[in-house]
């Protein structure tokens, strides 16, 4: 039974151990219909294991997976309303593009007409309508990616799973495919879950981001939540280029080792202040700093500053004359508009 309160996908206490090693710690996650959800984390954090559990390739050690309120935990991948775009695509090299795309429908013994008609539709959706009769090895990487996408989408999955879908593509193609994925998600209004280690990709595509580290989900939220209010030090460090400055909180007041102090409610004890590079600027009565490195990125200049506390603060400036203003060795004073404060354990 589904109601508007039942999420499309609900993971409850889901975990996976390989022998003594915990790949995924027990976690809960709810994904609503229409969501474009990113599972973001460094390699080896358990995100692919999580995705393969949802697809049915790995049996969980504990917990349950429900899709539209129906428990699918013990079902094999062929019986789940999910389909997957594999990292290496897994295209059938002995079949043509059209045969690849129509493979799942042919297994369902659909009529030839229906298979070819829906294959054509799916190929049109990924803009490969002219390539149906090609063999797989005659396609470029980007085209193969689209075939893999069409082959999964033709099954009209309740949830489309994508395992590092763009990792094998070069930068320019990756940006193109990001746009394509957004367009397709918009066009068919489905629910997509994808795994990535690239935070910019996660932010570019998803409306819901789950950040994973060492088998644990550290934070689930919208991209802006995750970026602007990281829940843990790991998230702050992994998402974006932030500077973490050590400090101490006493009676609602934080004093950083580097000097500045400000009001911040919370428990007494050691804290870290998270400072976003784009919020840092020159400030006449600010903290003294020395420029240790300046890298030109085209649209902006990334400057590394050494603070009196020997910590590094990153500054990003997109002003036209930035390169002239920050030269290695320069001594200057800087400040920042606001910071996120996170409790840090002792040490």
């Amino acid at each position: 039974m589904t109601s508007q309160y039942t999420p499309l996908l609900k993971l409850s206490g889901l975990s996976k151990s390989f022998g003594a090693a915990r790949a995924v710690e027990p976690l809960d996650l709810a994904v609503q219909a229409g969501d474009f959800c990113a599972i973001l984390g460094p390699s080896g954090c358990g995100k692919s294991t999580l995705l393969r559990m949802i697809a049915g390739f790995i049996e969980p050690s504990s917990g349950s997976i429900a899709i539209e309120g129906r428990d699918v935990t013990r079902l094999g991948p062929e019986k789940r309303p999910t389909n997957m775009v594999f990292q290496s695509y897994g295209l059938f090299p002995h079949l043509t593009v059209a045969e690849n795309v129509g493979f799942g429908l042919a297994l369902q013994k659909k009529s030839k007409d229906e298979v070819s008609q829906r294959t054509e539709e799916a190929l049109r959706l990924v803009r490969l309508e002219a390539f149906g009769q090609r063999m797989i090895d005659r396609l470029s990487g980007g085209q193969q990616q689209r075939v893999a996408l069409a082959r999964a989408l033709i099954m009209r999955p309740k949830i489309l799973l994508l395992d590092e879908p763009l990792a094998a593509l070069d930068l320019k193609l990756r940006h193109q495919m990001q746009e394509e994925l957004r367009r397709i998600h918009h066009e068919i209004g489905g629910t997509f879950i994808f795994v990535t280690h690239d935070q910019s990709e996660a932010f570019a595509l998803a409306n819901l981001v789950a950040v994973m580290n060492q088998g644990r989900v550290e934070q689930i939220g919208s991209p802006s939540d995750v970026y602007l209010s990281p829940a843990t030090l790991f998230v702050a460090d992994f998402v974006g280029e932030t500077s973490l400055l050590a400090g101490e909180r006493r009676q609602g007041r934080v004093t950083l080792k580097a000097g500045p102090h400000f009001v911040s409610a919370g428990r007494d004890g050691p804290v870290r202040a998270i400072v976003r590079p784009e919020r840092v600027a020159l400030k006449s009565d600010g903290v003294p700093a020395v420029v240790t490195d300046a890298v030109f990125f085209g649209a902006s200049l990334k400057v590394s500053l050494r603070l009196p506390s020997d910590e590094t603060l990153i500054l990003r400036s997109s002003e036209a004359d930035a390169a002239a203003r920050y030269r290695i060795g320069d001594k200057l004073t800087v400040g920042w508009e606001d910071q996120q404060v996170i409790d840090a354990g002792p040490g």
Partner: protein
Amino acid sequence: MIWRFVIAFFLLFMLGPILLVVLFSFGSNALIGFPMGGLTLDWYAKLAHDTGFHSAFWASFIVALATAILATITGTCAALALTKAAPKLVRSALAALSLPVLLPPLVVAIAIVVLFVRGLGLGLGLPVVILGHILVAQPFVILIVMARLARFDQATVDAARDLGASHWQAFRLVTLPQIASALIGAALVSAAISLDDFIIASFTIGGGNTISTFVWGKMRTTLDPSINAIATILLVLTVGLSALALRVSKYKG
């Protein structure tokens, strides 16, 4: 420059003697030696009317065909099991299955005879030859198929399962077509091994001849000049099958 001579020497050493036999099988002069006389197909024509050769040819054909099919099945099954197994198990299983190739074929052949004649009280014959050939051919099948499976993209099987295929459907529709050329190559190599074997066949055949044992009979006397022609036929069959196997399995990567 010196390497050219080295390479030429090796090719001459490896292929020369064999080509000599082929060359002289077309010579009107009876045995190998110059002058070889005029070109002739007489020796082949003579074989075509030799009933002893006919029965040897058919015996070899049956044995090679059965070996090719059965060894490819047993070896492929083993290769499929071993590609997903723990490395330790793979090493010991491969070592065990390769042992029959490492021991002198004489010992293997005698052991089989002792088992069938003394141990089981059964007779010898073509079925025993086939079993012996499966034993020797299956490690090569395993090596060939495992090499193909090592380059095999497991994601294709996952994808088929994800699209609704059962284990068996995924194997039949996705795995099998992809490794088919390797299986054909393995079957051809098995047939070549079977045809080339003389020692196991000569012990276990009981009565009658395969091409190998037929050639052996002529070699011992060396009085029959058609020996070059039979040797050439045997050579063309075994080397031809190996060359074909190489071509087939290379054809698709």
